[in-house]
């Protein structure tokens, strides 16, 4: 296409021969096209390489017999009936449980915050509040972890004691049957979920706010002209327009929550069970947190087994992301507000 356009110009200026000028003009264009295509393909290659190299390094643990693996890896205890895949199963349960609780807390709050910034706050204040949220999205997870472990847990522990005493009949808040109390330190799954929720709120908020701000002004004005109150305008114009964005934002938050390592690692007192009691310490752990806690002291076979867990985490997040993209693309087709 561009080649023919330049060829015409080349024929007119015959000084250096037609191919000369054409080459002079085309080489940078082609090089640029090639470089950008190469970068794009590199991303696909990288993603494939992540799977390939994780599989390569996990292979020794995946193919070893259970006895062999248990002998080589200290944290696999066959006397407790544990094998690698069982441990992964416990960890997947813990990961999903903690992330789901975090999202249940974070999503409604985030949508509210995003609406507050985009449509309720005075315009002069809104820019500053948006900046605040941007800053908070950038707080490193290790700082959230430190803050959670040192500052939040002491405040949460009495709340948990109260919950167990008064709402202990709900399985989630059930106290330990042996002692009749819940963890006095607060190093439990719910604490990890609360800190994770605080961590993903800025992410979900930032994306939702951008989407809400893109609501066509005509839609907003049309709703207001029909006599809608502000909330009705938001329900009729802003939320339908932003729905797919909110789903995408939530999935982004889920991706972060599923793979978040340090905050969970620093807060939770790990354990391997399928318990629903999120106030008991030593009951849950997440894949990422488990890897981080075992990796520094692991031997060769242990590293291989931990990489196998990493592969499982990779597959789960891959599936979540693919599902999220599918939902978003399906909803985008129905939102009807692409103009």
């Amino acid at each position: 296409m561009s080649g023919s356009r330049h060829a015409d110009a080349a024929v007119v200026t015959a000084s250096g021969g037609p191919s000369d000028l054409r080459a002079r003009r085309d080489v940078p264009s082609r090089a640029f096209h090639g470089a950008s295509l190469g970068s794009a393909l590199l991303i696909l290659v990288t993603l494939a390489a992540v799977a390939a190299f994780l599989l390569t390094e996990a292979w020794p643990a995946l193919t070893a017999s259970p006895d062999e693996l248990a002998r080589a890896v200290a944290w696999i205890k066959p006397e407790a009936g544990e094998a690698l895949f069982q441990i992964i199963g416990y960890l997947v349960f813990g990961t999903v449980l903690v992330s789901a609780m975090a999202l249940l807390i974070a999503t409604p709050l985030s949508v509210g915050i995003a609406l507050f910034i985009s449509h309720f706050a005075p315009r002069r204040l809104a820019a500053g509040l948006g900046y605040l949220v941007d800053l908070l999205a950038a707080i490193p997870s290790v700082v959230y972890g430190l803050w959670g472990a040192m500052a939040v847990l002491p405040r949460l522990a009495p709340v948990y004691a109260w919950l167990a005493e008064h709402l202990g009949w709900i399985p989630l808040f059930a106290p330990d049957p042996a002692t009749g109390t819940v963890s006095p330190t607060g190093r439990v799954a719910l604490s990890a979920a609360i800190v994770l929720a605080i961590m993903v709120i800025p992410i979900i908020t930032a994306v939702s706010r951008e989407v809400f701000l893109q609501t066509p002004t005509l839609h907003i004005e049309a709703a207001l002209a029909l006599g809608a109150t502000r909330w009705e305008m938001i329900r009729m114009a802003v939320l339908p327009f932003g729905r797919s964005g909110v789903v995408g934002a939530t999935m982004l938050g889920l991706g972060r929550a599923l793979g978040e390592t340090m905050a969970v690692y620093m807060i939770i007192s790990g354990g391997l069970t399928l318990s629903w009691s999120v106030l008991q310490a030593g009951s849950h752990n997440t894949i990422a947190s488990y890897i981080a806690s075992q990796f520094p002291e692991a031997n060769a076979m242990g590293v291989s087994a931990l990489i196998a867990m990493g592969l499982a985490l990779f597959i789960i997040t891959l599936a979540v992301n693919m599902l999220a993209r599918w939902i978003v693309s399906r909803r985008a087709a129905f939102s009807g507000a692409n103009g």
Partner: protein
Amino acid sequence: MSATVTTSDAAAAGTELKESASSPLTAVSRRRRFVDRAMTALIGAAFAAAIVPLVWLMTTVASRGIGRFLVDASGERNLNFNFLEQSMRGVSGGAPEGGIYHAVVGTVLITLTAAVISVPIGILTAVYLVEYARGPLKRAITFFVDVMTGIPSIVAGLFAYALAAVIVGPGTKTGLVGAGALAVLMVPVVVRASEEMLKLVPHELREAAYALGVPKWRVIVKVVLRTSVAGLATGVTLAIARVIGETAPLLIAVGVADSLNTNILDGRMMTLPVYIVSEWRKGPAVCGDPSAVCLPEITELRAWAAALVLILIVMALNLGARLISKHFSPKTGR
């Protein structure tokens, strides 16, 4: 059935009439006004509920982080900055010394290397997606960039570790391996941010340039990238700010070190986020020797002070992104 509808309609119309008598243009039924007020209150409360922990975190880090700077080597209360100038080489027990110099150097080196790897790839991919790609390949790349955004940071660390184990040898932990892990996390962030910015460039600008006979690559460099340079710089800076606090991949791919190492190709390095964790993990220092100056809480002080420095770096990057964006953006009417 129809009768009920009619009566309720009539009732509703009655209330509307009654209210509209006072002000016909702003008439809103009591129920609708209540819902509006309630939702406004709820949304305001949601904002407050999120601001509380955020302010709490900031003030906690600031107030506890300052503590290490107020203790000098003899254990006296004295403002000093030896925390920024020392490494942890030879520091043991509860001695009120030892700092983050080696960790800051490690973080800067590793993050810059990651940026050098990922920024060109990220921006070129965004250019490809916006300016060149069509059809299924475009959909595939967009899709997989989105998927890559969701790679957990620890998986990126394991990937870099596995890659180095295959290429160099098992157990290889160097700054470059960590930078590779961070680059995997950074590339999709840069692509997404840049893509959004390139899409904002009005088509009229491109068409005007094409109409003048400007070749495509010059249109991209001089018009598209020039127009969006502020957004790109902001996106890149925010991507750096995001990965500079990554801990898990560096814990796995770079490990920990007590002394300064400026060679990213050889040996373990300390980084600021990993420093925070390793100090926190030590727990209270054990004070055995009564003759030596010993603070049991020194490890905690170090962890908080390092967290304060890390947050200040991240904030400076964010502020820098704003300033770049303001300074370089083309002066348009928008």
